[in-house]
């Protein structure tokens, strides 16, 4: 690099990075990142003991879910919990990994107060699975490239440690909560293949959604159910490990900060300079050095001498593969295709849980409590199925998007109303309108028994009644034809005389109720004529309870007002 470009770059850097918000990559300085993700499995029991594996965010009494093994008392032995193996298998299959038919546990030795055994049982020499991958897509995951495949080096099963709670002076104590000790973890290590911030964000989001989708973890970063370490290096700068990153925001900020740091180091380099890698921590503002390579601990790995090899047969793996749910990307692809033809946005609503399910997440308010994307998807698919059966009576098989009604009505109208009335989706499904009922409702619209606007009115009335009658306790009986009669919502057949008479009546009574000035203005064809006419149409629609189409009303009004 010439002095000129160096100076230029320095100035460029200062401009870019003093304003923290506008991060940009410097041409010629390539970011290379890898992730190491620890995921707590939400098995019923702990990894090697029969203690309950409690949810980390639950406010359980410290040290209430421990047994003798979790505390490493002399004479205790590990007994492997097979549910952890099942969960690890599911994840390995979902990530297209090569599953090790004979994986083993090893001991990783280090002294720390939260590690009562003096070692962690992990998988070092022969991990559970290798060579997996997760592919990111432009349209699904919002990355710049059309696709980006992230290779996963390995997946291993290991124990979590106890939780340390540090009390500040004057107490100056470290409290240890062993509820977390021996909870099963999966450690996943990616190749250092990320070269853009968007890819990292997308991977985290996608992985988090995947583990939730598989029901193997709550996937919450906030309470440590998922923990992410990042390794970062720019060009020839040695690798730096970033630890203690509590959430995605810190991860992204820390990577940006470290990128800038390393670029600056490289720009200021003199001949013979040796750069330091090592481990750094993130304090919310900057990365802080924890230790460098020379003071690394020798973990003295040793195969665990009493835990048996995890032996899996290919038959078992194949039988688990058959029980695997459809994966999120496949679901999205299914939903955007015929017959569902959803927009990518709607498909994601039904597939991706962007918010946490956990009660600890304060940002997740009404939206989350109203519905869960998975329940909603189940409801949607079932309703579609019922709807197709009801409407497919031999005719109109090759419609372009035969499920437009269920899509619009469920994802938009229904959810909108539920939010407005604060009704939980599951309550609605269980006690108000189940998929067959909702499909019947949609069929009435499709067969033009009620108009679109009458249907909106009707649905809202049903929901309001459901909410008001405090019938949320018991199942509500819904007889749609009866309700349509009750509210007088049948569509008017505009083609016959009786229908025309009804339309005339409605329009005339609206005109009567409207001030003469306004009518005159419309007749005169003033500058706001269109707007005013629309007002009249609206009023007529309202009076007819939506039974007449706006088109019919407009032509009737035109006739009456001689326009």
């Amino acid at each position, binding site marked *: 690099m010439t002095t000129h470009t160096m100076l230029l770059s320095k100035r460029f850097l200062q401009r870019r990075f003093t304003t923290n918000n506008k991060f940009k990559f410097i041409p010629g300085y390539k970011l290379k990142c890898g992730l190491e993700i620890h995921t707590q499995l939400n098995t019923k029991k702990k990894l090697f003991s029969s203690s309950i594996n409690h949810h980390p965010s639950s406010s359980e009494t410290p040290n209430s879910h421990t047994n003798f093994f979790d505390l*490493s008392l002399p004479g205790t032995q590990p007994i492997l919990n097979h549910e952890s193996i099942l969960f690890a298998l599911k994840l390995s299959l979902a990530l297209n990994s090569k599953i090790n038919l004979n994986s083993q546990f090893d001991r990783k030795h280090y002294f720390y107060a939260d590690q009562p055994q003096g070692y962690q049982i992990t998988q070092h020499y022969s991990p559970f699975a290798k060579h997996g991958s997760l592919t990111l897509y432009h349209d699904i995951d919002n990355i710049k490239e059309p696709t980006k495949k992230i290779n996963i080096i390995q997946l291993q099963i290991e124990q979590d440690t106890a939780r340390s709670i540090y009390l500040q002076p004057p107490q100056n104590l470290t409290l240890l909560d062993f509820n977390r000790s021996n909870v099963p973890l999966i450690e996943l290590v990616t190749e250092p293949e990320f070269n853009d911030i968007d890819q990292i964000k997308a991977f985290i989001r996608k992985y988090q959604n995947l583990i939730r989708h598989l029901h193997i973890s709550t996937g919450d970063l906030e309470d440590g159910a998922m923990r992410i370490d990042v390794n970062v290096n720019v060009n020839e700068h040695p690798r730096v490990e970033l630890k203690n990153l509590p959430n995605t925001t810190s991860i992204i900020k820390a990577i940006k900060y470290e990128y800038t740091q390393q670029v600056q180091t490289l720009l200021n380099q003199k001949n013979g300079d040796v750069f330091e890698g090592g481990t750094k921590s993130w304090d919310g503002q900057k990365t802080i050095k924890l230790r460098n390579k020379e003071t690394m601990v020798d973990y003295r790995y040793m195969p665990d001498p009493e835990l048996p090899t995890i032996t899996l047969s290919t038959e078992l793996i194949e039988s688990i593969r058959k029980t695997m749910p459809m994966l999120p990307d496949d679901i999205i692809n299914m939903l955007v295709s015929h017959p569902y033809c959803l927009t990518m946005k709607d498909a994601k609503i039904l597939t991706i849980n962007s918010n946490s399910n956990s009660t600890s997440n304060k940002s997740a308010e009404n939206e989350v409590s109203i519905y869960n994307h998975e329940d909603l998807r189940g409801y949607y698919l079932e309703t579609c199925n019922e709807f197709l059966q009801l409407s497919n009576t031999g005719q109109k098989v090759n419609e372009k998007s035969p499920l437009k009604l269920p899509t619009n009505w469920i994802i938009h109208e229904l959810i909108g109303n539920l939010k407005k009335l604060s009704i939980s989706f599951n309550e609605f499904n269980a006690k108000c309108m189940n998929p067959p009922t909702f499909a019947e409702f949609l069929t009435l619209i499709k067969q033009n028994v009620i108009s679109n606007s009458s249907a909106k009115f009707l649905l809202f009335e049903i929901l309001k009644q459901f909410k008001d009658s405090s019938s949320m306790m018991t199942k509500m009986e819904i007889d749609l034809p009866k309700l349509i009669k009750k509210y007088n919502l049948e569509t008017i057949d505009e083609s016959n005389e009786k229908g025309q008479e009804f339309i005339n009546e409605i329009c005339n009574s609206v005109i009567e109720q409207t001030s003469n000035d306004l009518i005159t203005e419309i007749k005169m064809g003033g500058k706001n004529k269109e707007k005013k006419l629309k007002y009249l149409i609206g009023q007529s629609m309202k009076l007819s309870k939506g039974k007449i189409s706006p088109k019919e009303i407009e032509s009737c009004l035109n006739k009456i007002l001689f326009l």
Partner: protein
Amino acid sequence: MSQAKSIDHVIKALPKLQSRYNIFAHLEPSTKILQRYNDIQKNQPNSTLAGTISAIKDNIVTQDSNTTCASQMLKEYKSPFTATIVKLLSNAGTTIVGKTNMDEFAMGSLGIHSCYGPTINPSRAFFANDDMGKREMVTGGSSSGSAAAVSATIDGDNIIDFALGTDTGGSVRLPASYCSVLGFKGSYGRISRYGVVSFAQSLDTVGIFAKDLPILRGVFDVLNKYDRKDPTSLNDLLRNEIIELSDKCLHRLQNPLRIGIVQEFNQESVDKDIKSAFHDFIGQLMEKGYTVVPISIPSIKYSLPIYYTLAPSEAVSNLSRYDGIRFGTRDPNEDVNNEAFFSKTRSNFGTEVRNRLILGNYNLSSSFAHNNYIQAQKLRVNLINEFDFMFKFPNVLTRNKANVGDDNGIDFIISPTSLNKPTFVRRAMSDKIATDEYFNDIFTIPASLAGLPTMTIPIRGNEPIGIQIMGQYGDDQGVLDFTSTLMKK
């Protein structure tokens, strides 16, 4: 099964056992012993072990008394749970009178590395007339107190009918031979280790000391159970398979048994008395019509290095939980340090334990091109394969092809139990060369590495000379039956 002796006699004798031989790490109060004994006589007089008096090694956890492993580190430690084997024994009606002295954390083969001081060998070979203090010889270890407890007599009477020890590399067999009693370690995984403080799990087994074979067999029958709490416990499927195999091997009773003598065990340095006793024993076998065949198991010459790579590595790992935070005391000045293999906090460990921790850490260090532990494991597999090739009885774990055909395979292997006879306690304690002690395990270690059921029998009355009978993995009953035959004469 109960021996004819009164409980009052036992209670009076126990303090003498302790003051003469330093047998116990913990002795139960007399009132408790009496009450327990009487309870059994009243409520379960017909249980298998009713009326027996027993003791267990202090590395087996019990809820009602401390479990110290003869270490300062666990001086005040009381376990909140009781080992499976102690529960089984109690249910069978024995009266356990105390926890026995041992080498700290079962590391040692002399019984001198204990925070309670050395156990003294009570064999009548050294104490002709209960004469104290003249010839204080070692008991052998690490289950020193258990061996001494069974060996010791007061006024010519046995006090303790049986005792439990643990055997990782010979810790039951060596002291049994030094104290002239029977010592049996089952196949690896036969007897539950749940509640047995680990030294080196891939080798640790529980063993039984007794003078009387029927008592020993009775105890074995009580303990010979699958335990789901122990991940290395032999499962019922394999246990049943072994029983079926044993039934098929009943022809052993008709045909002359083939007994193997391992060439690699022909050590120059074997004590001359032991050598001649062993030769006499072989002569007797041949007279009785047994076929004695020399066999070669080449990997035996690697067994000491394999053992001293595996055992200290596992030990350093197992003992890392005693970090001074939860157990022992914490050094006020110097805390646990990531970089140090052991820091001042761990000065609660005795010298021999510290030696082995250093050795173990050395073996596991990543700086050695390839972790020594893994190399040693591979050599251990070779050794097992070579044993499998010798035995008629198939190995249900390895599924190696057994050496069937009556002209080839062997039924049992015999060898001396120890290289030397016991030495003076004072000399052993002043000896600075730890490896001499390590060499003494040369005959016992191969069976530990291969997990073989092995019995040591005293063959010269009260002399501290024993021979070992090793059977194929799982063939515990075979070894016990053969021992019975030999002892009938």
